[in-house]
């Protein structure tokens, strides 16, 4: 991607803006009265319109302009925000995305339809409100309704405002344009000269603004800096000659003030939504990632050091020092490079980490839409959004999670009537949580719906011949049936679930991420799906083993213990392949036989016991070489059918070692166990 292309840059930025607008709207859907959110959405629309026009996206600018105009009425309090309005603007947002991504051809009619809906929603909202509102609404500007004789303002910008491109003088000029101003600077917080940083702004301003000016006009001046600044606005004392009605209206505006004033003290709290949406939008665009500058600097430092060490190495290679001296120097360089490589790796890994908030935030829209489509009331709660996961992981988790959430909303949650009948609150709960446990991240999707219908699953499994009619099966195994390929819950399929992704695909995707999926469900109380995924896809700690002449890596996270397989035990266990491990029979696989190495076994073979969840399998290897930091490389697509391997890695000597797919091997072991049991 050419980052110099301004249009591409605009697309990325517009994508972020649209995400911001979407998040704002979804929040607004829950707190219709929240002025700060209304302002946020409005600012987003406004910026999008401006930059869209600047980069030649005229259709976008025009469409956004109409939305902005409509939404402005909400912002000015002329029409209340309603769920319908939020829904329409959400679809308008999708239309804007289409306009940005496409060339706008053929979208005009869709845009016109949305604008008509928007108008209808605004009108409906305005009509539902008391009639008097309609009068000032038709007069266009809210001028007289909220005007006072003047205003007393105080504002102070955050210290770094000037560095961010805000010029307080321009703000003052804009205020002057509104009416007669008396401006006094408050200098009480200016630090002593020795501590003064010239690029920081420490001056506050008291302004007395006289004239027939609406509160909105003042807000407009500060609209782009409002989030972080301290701003108080009070009407000047009303003239004694004011009539009662006017006084009433100004008390109206008074009540309006507390709604916006908290934005001053909210400086600290506004930091909370900030970072949450920041990285979120960063993760969303597939091709680009936003990286904090200091992390890049850190990376640059490491690379700088590496260049120096490299030049030392080439000096050494071409030099004529004594052999002993050279060896010492070489060793020190080697150590240096080892340290640098480690640090580079760590820095790089951190760059790839993205908080799961970016993943979770996508589902808010999904749940919102699902709720509207199904007519259910669904609340989505999230927890642990700051947990960081590798960026590629986020991308690849999105689809399976969409499917799981759809399932939860569509099949899991009951209709409000059914819920009431079952004595549950009407609103269904879908809870997403993420937390880190060791080298894994656990992502939980929980609903409080009806739970999985065992009878139905059993009936399906029997119909498909997966189990014998009446065959006893553990609850856990029964639930696992839903991951079986082709296990379609056709009776329940609706247009929501018709995405062509079955639970088997979900399971496969999770397993391809070296993760695992667990499902528990209590009838009538809901289901919980837990996805366990590794922190990163790129590097794992592995155990390097040798089987025959080949070297293989077993992910260390899955290794439970290593034992020796003595010769007599080996002979005795021929044909049954079980070892007793703390009173439990553990099946084991002779990798030498599976891999058909054609070599003789080592006299001291080892068993590496691996586990996924509660299932354990022993792998017989010839030799355990040691632990190995494994950079995972994917196998060629042509080798994808070789299920025993999850990837490959390059060893210190340039050779290749294959990485064993633990889940597959455990399955293989379990199958073998079942076969042997069946054989009696």
């Amino acid at each position: 991607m050419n980052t110099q292309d301004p249009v591409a840059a605009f697309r990325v930025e517009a994508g972020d803006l649209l995400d911001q607008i979407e998040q704002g709207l979804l929040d607004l859907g829950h707190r219709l009265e929240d002025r700060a959110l209304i302002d946020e959405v409005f600012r987003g629309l406004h910026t999008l319109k401006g930059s869209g026009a600047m980069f030649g996206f005229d259709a976008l600018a025009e469409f956004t302009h109409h939305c902005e105009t409509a939404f402005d009425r909400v912002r000015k309090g002329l029409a209340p925000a309603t769920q319908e309005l939020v829904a329409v603007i959400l679809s308008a947002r999708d239309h804007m995305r289409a306009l940005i991504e496409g060339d706008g051809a053929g979208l005009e009619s869709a845009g016109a339809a949305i604008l008509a809906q928007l108008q209808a929603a605004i009108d409906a909202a305005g009509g539902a409100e008391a009639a008097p509102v309609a009068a000032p609404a038709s007069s266009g500007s809210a001028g007289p309704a909220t005007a006072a004789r003047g205003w007393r303002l105080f504002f102070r910008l955050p210290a770094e405002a000037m560095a961010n491109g805000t010029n307080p003088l321009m703000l003052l000029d804009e205020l002057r344009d509104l009416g007669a101003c008396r401006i006094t600077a408050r200098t009480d917080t200016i630090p002593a000269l020795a501590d003064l940083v010239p690029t920081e702004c420490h001056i506050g301003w008291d302004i007395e603004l006289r004239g027939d000016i609406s509160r909105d006009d003042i807000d407009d001046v500060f609209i782009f800096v409002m989030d972080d600044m301290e701003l108080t606005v009070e009407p000047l004392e009303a003239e004694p000659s004011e009539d009662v009605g006017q006084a009433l209206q100004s008390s109206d505006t008074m009540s309006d003030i507390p709604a916006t004033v908290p934005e001053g003290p909210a400086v600290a709290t506004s930091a909370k939504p900030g970072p949450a949406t920041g990285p979120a939008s960063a993760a969303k665009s597939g091709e680009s990632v936003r990286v904090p500058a200091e992390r890049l600097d850190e990376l640059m430092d490491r690379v700088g050091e590496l260049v120096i060490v490299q030049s030392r190495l080439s000096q050494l290679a071409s030099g004529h020092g004594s052999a002993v001296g050279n060896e010492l120097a070489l060793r020190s360089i080697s150590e240096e490079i080892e340290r640098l490589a480690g640090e580079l790796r760590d820095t790089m890994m951190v760059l790839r980490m993205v908080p799961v908030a970016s993943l979770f935030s996508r589902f808010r829209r999904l749940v919102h839409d699902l709720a509207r489509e199904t007519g259910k009331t669904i609340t989505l709660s999230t927890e642990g959004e700051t947990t960081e996961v590798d960026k590629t992981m986020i991308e690849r988790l999105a689809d399976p999670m969409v499917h799981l959430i759809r399932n939860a909303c569509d099949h899991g949650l009951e209709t409000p009537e059914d819920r009431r009948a079952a004595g549950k609150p009407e609103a269904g709960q879908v809870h997403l949580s993420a937390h880190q446990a060791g080298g894994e991240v656990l992502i939980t999707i929980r609903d409080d719906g009806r739970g999985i219908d065992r009878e139905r699953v059993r009936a399906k499994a029997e119909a498909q011949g997966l189990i014998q009619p009446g065959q006893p099966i553990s609850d856990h195994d029964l639930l696992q049936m839903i991951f079986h390929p082709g296990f379609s819950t056709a009776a329940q399929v609706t247009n929501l679930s018709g995405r062509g992704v079955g639970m088997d695909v979900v399971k496969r995707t999770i397993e391809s991420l070296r993760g695992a999926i667990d499902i528990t469900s209590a009838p009538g109380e809901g289901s919980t799906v837990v996805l366990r995924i590794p922190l990163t896809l790129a590097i794992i700690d592995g155990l390097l083993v040798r089987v025959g002449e080949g070297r293989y890596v077993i992910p260390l996270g899955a290794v439970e213990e290593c034992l020796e397989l003595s010769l007599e035990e080996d002979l005795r266990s021929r044909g049954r392949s079980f070892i007793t491990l703390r009173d439990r029979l553990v099946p084991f696989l002779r990798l030498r036989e599976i891999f058909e190495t054609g070599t003789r076994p080592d006299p001291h073979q080892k068993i590496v016991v691996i586990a996924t969840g509660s299932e354990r399998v022993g792998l017989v290897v010839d030799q355990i070489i040691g632990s190995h930091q494994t950079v995972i490389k994917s196998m060629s697509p042509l080798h994808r059918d070789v299920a025993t391997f999850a990837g490959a890695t390059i060893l210190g000597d340039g050779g290749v070692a294959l990485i064993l797919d633990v889940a597959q091997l455990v399955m293989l072991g379990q199958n073998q166990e079942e076969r042997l049991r069946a054989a009696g």
Partner: protein
Amino acid sequence: MPESIPASTSTQWDGEGRLEVLTFNLGEETFALEATLVREILDLLPETGVPGAAPLLGSVVNFRGKIIPIADLRLAFAMPAAEATVDSRIVVIETEAEGEVFQIGIRTDKVHEVATLDRDASEEPPAVGMRWRRDFVRELVRRRDGVVVLPDLAAIFRSLTGAGDSAAGQPSTVH
């Protein structure tokens, strides 16, 4: 110019009915692949066997930090596996399947040259009388010193992954 094996197995002759190819030997036969596919020609590398993989793609090598499979086309053309010689080379080609671009190393017994083939001298593989699977051969091209075989890599690799459905666009594979 095609940058990868086209989904259809037709040979991409240029406007004048010519094709630039790299010729190489497998056993006694001369084969040719479009020069545009070829990325690199390497000496043999230490190979790592992949247990469970098709013998034709039975190993992988470390090709500058990438793991690429090594294809032994001898097996596709019913030739016995042979020991490496001083002339053995790996020809790395880039190809595409299901929207993914990837590289494969082809083990050859000897690499000759980049040559230009003529469409006028080329023929469809005969329906009878070949020792090989007919769908593995795209075309046979006569030259002064013998016949050059244009193998159909897509068909060969498809036969490994067992994707029978993709054979629909390929009437010649109907058995």
